[in-house]
């Protein structure tokens, strides 16, 4: 989100708080989020795709909703209304193709023709809904949903496949397939959307997903403030917030002051600190230009803090805006660079993602392995579960070798920390307060530098360059 977009969201929040009757709030959240989905989607080089992808998001969300419907629940009138409303908005957003709208209302730039889109989307939705109805709530259906989402994820995040798919999309619209690139399929927010959907599918399977109507399920998955960069909220949290909206006191000075304060902090972090650090932070170009170890460390430190201020500032803004609308999103950062070990770091950096990893990979995998006969050794289980979790978290950012290495870097770090604590727990608990404080400082510095060195993989798309940066950081060999 850029400055004007944040301004528009604030203006929308002001109107929402001041004038909207309280009982319409949940509906407004859904309608606003559907419009926001199309509005925030950047224009793409492939014709019609910046309309098609958000529309596809809506279809996918509808199918997942049908799949996760509790066995005893039925599709109610309210659900049909919400579905119709969503379809109506999507259809309305085809209008700019036919009539000239003032630029402010042109949420979709060049939508596809209605005579193709409407039958296609309707057909897809109906077929999908029938299928989802058959599979609804069954273990197989839910698993299939997870696999389809994961497959889509791979298609979109693994650049050879993405390029092929983009080539297909280009030939469908009669554009030059030779120009296809992963940028063509810049599906806004998909990574977050997919992980939210997987959470609902899996929680339905274990029976803890709260009953959500389509309206609230949709506004959970595509909630505008959290669409672009998270956090990954949990459905029960969103559901509870929306359920309380009609009675919630949004015209509350404490809430508004806190929200505005949070947004102000976020704006400062993102647009002043992070964007200034961005000028000289580590990247493929700066890494190749830096002369010497000192210079490379400066770039790396700048990158580490830029990433934190950018991402956490963004989260502050999202949480602040969410608060104005009456939905408190989860915290995503808790002073991560001041943590004394890597385990606590991961409980305070992009928390909503690492929680997701713990709930849907680490914990189930550990438990499955613990139940195996014969039971593997605990360290084997811990290592496998940690590695699997962090490789997925790494690849979530993009299916590339450097992200894989970054995930593996943290998995190894966490495993090493586990081995260390198991051997030192008793000794550490016996330390005097002063000694413990000293170890705390040492641990914090070590943890920060371990994380910062890990960012080398994160910042550079090329392994060879990453290795050269490592060499440069420790004064080995020439430039990177």
């Amino acid at each position, binding site marked *: 989100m850029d400055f004007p977009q944040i301004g528009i969201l604030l203006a929308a929040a002001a109107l929402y708080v001041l004038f909207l009757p309280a009982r319409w709030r949940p509906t407004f959240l859904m309608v606003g989020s559907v419009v926001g989905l199309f509005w925030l989607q950047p224009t793409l080089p492939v014709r019609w795709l910046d309309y098609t992808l958000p529309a596809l998001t809506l279809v996918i969300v509808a199918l997942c909703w049908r799949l996760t419907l509790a066995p005893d629940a039925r599709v109610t009138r309210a659900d049909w209304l919400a579905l119709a409303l969503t379809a109506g908005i999507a259809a309305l957003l085809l209008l700019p193709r036919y009539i000239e709208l003032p630029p402010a209302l042109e949420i979709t730039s060049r939508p596809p023709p209605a005579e193709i889109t409407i039958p296609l989307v309707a057909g897809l939705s109906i077929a999908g809904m029938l299928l989802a109805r058959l599979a609804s709530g069954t273990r197989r259906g839910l698993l299939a949903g997870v696999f389809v989402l994961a497959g889509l994820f791979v298609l979109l995040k693994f650049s050879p496949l993405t390029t092929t798919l983009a080539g297909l999309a280009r030939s469908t619209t009669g554009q030059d397939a030779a120009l296809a690139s992963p940028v063509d399929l810049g599906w806004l927010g998909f990574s977050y959307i997919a992980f939210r959907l997987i959470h609902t599918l899996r929680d339905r399977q274990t029976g803890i997903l709260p009953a959500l109507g389509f309206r609230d399920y949709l506004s959970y998955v595509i909630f505008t403030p959290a669409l672009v960069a998270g956090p990954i909220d949990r459905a029960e949290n969103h559901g509870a917030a929306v359920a309380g909206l009609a009675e919630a006191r949004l015209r509350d000075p*404490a809430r508004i*002051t*806190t929200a505005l304060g*949070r947004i102000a902090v976020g704006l400062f972090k993102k647009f002043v600190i992070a964007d200034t650090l961005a000028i*000289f932070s580590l990247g493929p170009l700066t890494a190749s*230009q830096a002369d*010497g170890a000192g210079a490379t460390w400066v770039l790396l430190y700048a990158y580490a803090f830029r990433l934190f201020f950018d991402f956490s500032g963004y989260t502050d803004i999202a*949480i602040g805006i969410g608060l104005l609308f009456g939905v408190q999103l989860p915290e995503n950062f*808790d002073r991560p660079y001041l943590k004394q070990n890597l385990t606590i770091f991961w409980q305070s950096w992009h928390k909503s993602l690492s929680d997701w990893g713990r709930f849907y990979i680490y914990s189930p995998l550990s438990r499955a392995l613990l139940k195996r006969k014969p039971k593997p050794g605990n360290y084997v289980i811990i290592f496998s579960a940690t590695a699997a979790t962090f490789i997925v978290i790494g690849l979530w950012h993009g299916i590339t070798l450097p992200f894989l290495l970054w995930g593996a870097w943290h998995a190894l770090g966490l495993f090493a920390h586990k081995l260390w604590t198991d051997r030192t727990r008793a000794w550490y608990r016996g330390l005097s307060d002063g000694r413990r404080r000293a170890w705390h400082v040492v641990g914090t510095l070590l943890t920060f530098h371990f994380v910062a060195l890990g960012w080398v993989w994160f910042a550079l798309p090329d392994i060879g360059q990453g290795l050269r940066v490592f060499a440069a950081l420790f004064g080995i060999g020439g430039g990177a």
Partner: protein
Amino acid sequence: MSAMPGWKWLTDGGYTWGFLARVLGKALALFVLLNLAFVLADPVPALGRVSLYNGLLAGRERLPYGEDPAAYNLSLFDLNAMFASHTLAGPRPDARRVIVLGDSSVWGVLLENRDTLPACLTEQLPGTRFYNVGYPTMSALKDLLLLEAALAYQPDAIMWLVTLESLPRERQLDAPIVANNPARVRPLIERFGLGFDPLDPRFVETDFIGRTLIGQRRALADWLRLQAYGVAWTHTGIDQVYGEYTPRSNDFDEDATWQGLNPDATLNDDILALDVLRAGASLTGQARVPLLLVNEPIFIADGQNSDVRYNFWYPRWSYDQYRALLGDAAAAEGWPYADLWDAVAPAEFTDSPVHLTPAGSRALCEAVVPFVAAIQEEADAGS
């Protein structure tokens, strides 16, 4: 609303409407006051003197200029900030200090810092440090503006490279750095009776709003970006992106006009701003700093219609007249003068009639050395 872990300072306020209104009211009042204070104090020039360069960061070898963030460089109009970022503002070396003024060929478009004329001269003349105060726009008035600012650093001599393209009177104010510094340019016009209108509409006037914090936000952001780019400059030594370029043309249409003038025209003080050169000479004279004027090398074509034109900029008639005029003026005023118009071989020009290759830059450097040595001897004899 439930708790926000880690945000106690923000959430523990027990806020009321009165509180929110007071915060917003005070913020508004502070904002208005700050803007008024900004107008009264005009802190940007003073802020410009505050710089991370030459301390935390390495000084720049040439003035900040450029639009490409990949060059870790930017164009700004705050002369204080520009000079504060330059090595000229750094510690004084134990050497004679000579400032080199001029256009983009001195600044060094397409040249690394080590290949520029000032760098070469520093190397050729031990005991003398040459500072690159060239700036890429064609305007002698711009050079005068920079000269005045540079004199504050008490140089031992000034070298000023000019060419015809930087002298058309009409175009002196087109340089954005001139147009955006009326407070410095107008006193120069008045002091030396220069032939420009102090109320020329090209001067960018700052109205009341323009002097507030809001109006000055661009200047503040430029200052901040200049400091931030300095980190990258210090650690990479990059201040320019060297891309592919289109070589200067060697063939021309049969067009002999120059600045809308036909070959039968006579160039004179109305057309050429020679008074700016006189002002520069008088400024340096008052400061008792020797000045060497150099007519910089130009590309001399041999292609189609090269009998009419030397190059893309200059029809032969206009440039020949200019050379004669400049030579006469130097002789009449007694300026040390080096006419090096053909000192560099045509092959050593890059994308414009005055931009040089590293080899061209070296050729110019070698050609200019005797003249520099001569004025230094004169200065030593005089002091």
